[in-house]
């Protein structure tokens, strides 16, 4: 990245980055790191982090695909959760400052890296896999294009955690409320015409917390880097739960 930028087109950007190394720090602190960024082209927040890490090699963050499909680099960018690799500085920087913090609501392991165990545990609770009872045919299970379309907006989830860690209901009850990401996956399988465990899936959500702690705040929708709508998925499940009670 840095090698291709002509020196004449650089300006200084002050990054304020959350730092915490459990082996040396008693508590976290914000560190200012000044980096040189190009003025004639946009770069991503992740590129800016690489430049900061070149100056501060101990700075730690997760990253992998750098194109918004692997979900590694979810973080809190100037107050809003997002993926560093697809958030351009032009969008993120305010008053020439870029503040980066770990995603809120989960324990911090180090710097921008959070412990996602709770998040993954909640995902596993919804049995995020296709459950079938009938025997598999020799070829594919038939699914019409219309049935398949029901999965659009659901299967694309990248498990970055931006939604659940921006959800106040998840902050209060991360062990009991499943959170938007897990519930989106729950609906992804309920909505799949091939799945044969809808009733059991719904049964598992019939308590006061798992699903019903969603209060429709919709932070999940506003931060999802893939443009998905967990609130809608949750209300779809809610409708199913209510309508089967009426029957």
């Amino acid at each position, binding site marked *: 990245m840095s*090698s291709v930028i002509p020196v004449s087109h650089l300006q200084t950007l002050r990054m304020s980055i959350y730092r915490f*190394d*459990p*082996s*040396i720090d008693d508590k976290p602190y914000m560190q200012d790191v000044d980096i040189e960024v190009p003025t004639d082209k946009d770069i991503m927040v992740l590129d800016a982090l690489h430049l900061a*890490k*070149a100056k501060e*090699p*101990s700075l*730690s*963050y*997760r*990253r*992998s*695909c*750098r*194109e*918004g*499909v*692997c*979900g*590694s680099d979810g973080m809190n960018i100037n107050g809003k959760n997002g993926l560093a690799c*697809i958030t*351009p500085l032009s969008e993120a920087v305010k008053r020439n400052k870029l503040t980066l913090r770990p995603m809120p609501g989960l324990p911090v*392991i*180090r*710097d921008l*890296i959070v*412990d*996602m165990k709770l998040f*993954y545990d909640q995902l*596993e609770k919804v*049995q*995020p*896999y*296709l459950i*079938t009872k009938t025997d*598999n045919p*020799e*070829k*594919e*299970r*038939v*699914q*019409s*294009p219309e*049935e*398949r379309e029901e*999965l659009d907006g659901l*299967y*694309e989830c*990248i*498990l970055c955690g931006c939604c659940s860690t921006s959800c106040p209901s998840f902050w209060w009850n991360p062990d009991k409320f499943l959170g938007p990401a897990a519930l989106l996956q729950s609906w992804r*399988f309920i909505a*799949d015409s*091939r*799945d044969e465990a809808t009733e059991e899936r719904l049964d598992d959500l019939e308590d006061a917390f798992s699903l019903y702690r969603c209060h429709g705040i919709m932070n999940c929708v506003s931060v999802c880097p893939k443009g998905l709508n967990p609130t809608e998925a949750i209300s779809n499940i809610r409708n199913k739960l209510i309508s089967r009670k009426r029957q």
Partner: protein
Amino acid sequence: MKVNEVINAKDLPVMEFDGIIIGGGGAGLRASLQLAESGLNTAVISKVFPTRSHTVSAQGGITCAIQSDDPDDDWRWHMFDTVKGSDYIGDQEAIEYMCSEGPKAVFELEHMGLPFSRTEEGKIYQRPFGGQSKDYGKGGQATRTCAAADRTGHSLLHTLYQANLKAGTNFLNEWFAIDMVLNDDGAVVGVVAFEIESGEIFYIRSKATVLATGGAGRIYASTTNALINSGDGIGMALRAGLPVQDIEMWQFHPTGIHGAGTLVTEGCRGEGGYLLNKDGERFMERYAPNSKDLAGRDVVARSMAQEILEGRGCGPNADHIFLRLDHLGPEVVHKRLPGITELSKTFAGVDPAVQPIPVVPTCHYMMGGVPTNLNGQVITIKEGKDTVIEGLYAAGEVACVSVHGGNRLGGNSLLDLVVFGRSAGIHIEESMKQGVDLKKASTDDIDKALERLNRLNSSTEGEQVAVLKERMQQNMQNNFGVFRREDLMVKGIEMLNDSREAVENIYLQDKSAAFNTARIEALEMQNLFEVAEATAITANERKESRGAHARDDYPERNDDDWLKHSIYFSKTKEVSKRDVNYRPKTVQAFQPAVRTY
């Protein structure tokens, strides 16, 4: 015991499994699924949470003759295309196995829940891809690539992860494997690895170890590959004295987004998109009159590079090519290629339903790798003979079985992953049933696997990773790219020689234990360097042009001398040759022919 202490093998805690899989991408998860479902005590060791693996970035699809689009499609036609695509150094027995077993593996994925796009009849949707034909090249373009929109890799990886959750696989997520442990007999009996979060380090003993560590595209400055693609399995194999095969064969994907390197699927051209030079000419018609934009990737990438070299590139610097999709209409673009729409907007600032995407050939895939047989067992060459390494398997991009030879066809990597991840799993299952008895590793054996970690931890001065990596990537980009020639490659090899000592003695400034990404990057850099050096030396030795390996100084294919695999050992830095398999079991071998599209 922490990863930043001075570590002796005798103090190292031990974990034990029947089978371990290093890497949580498509190949690793398909292998682990096989083992977990058979009740073996299995662990996946992955340096990232599995769904962050690079398989997630695969877009266009998985090529397989499932007869959805064309009820008369035939896996033998797919085999013919793959052999031809490989420029005749793909092993035909392996290609036969992949193409004929493929449908089973693809339907299994569908049964696991993979959300394939659908045809009107509710079957798996297929799209045309490059290098595909009907009737052994005589029946025109085939439509053989099974797709979930343009997110097939994402769908496949998540589906396999879900299936592994269901099967109860043990996951050691965010663990990093440093090196393999070989016993007195030269068999592999596990790895030394540490948990990245805590820095706790272990000897993980196992009866079967599967390398599924993926590719190493980060040896180049410009690549479609994820930042994690550092060739860890190749580094481990070479340091253990094992060979790599055809490592000079690197695929440059025709369409990486100019400047960013992110992939734009071949499926764009499959859906009807085409390439334009600055004159607005569909130049592929000149280079490949029949297949045009859907010729083999090596052919398209070279044609694009040629257009740019001859001054017909687009943009103010005439340094890229346009990929046009807008004529397909917003309906097709947004429905069939939603991911591309997103990526183009983010990384090129264009909506492909309106404007062309600026693209350039970009490093994409490592055709070479650790040589294996059909069961995924790693082989070495002893006194000219193939010899199985007990306890060690490899599958996916890290392996070279070899189904891709000199050039991989689009959609064949995902098929490779599931077919050979599965076959490695099946073989391990069978051999466990019969009983595996490998000699235990001595503390000396384990100490060898700790060597480079201890050296890194005791470093007090030296060069930093970022500097070394930048130098290597520029070198590979400039001297081992789409077109190659001896003087540049010799210069490149010298530059690598000059760096080797510094790479072996990287200075690690931050020696902390918990989630220390600087340590990981240093260990990855050493792996990348092994791949770069192997690529450089072997590329210079193969004195011909074949598949992705195009030399200005040897422009012709030379079947007399080089209808062979290259074999490279890092200990001697010597390149030898190995016969290509021309013995498929159920069909006649396809003989080398002039390769035109």
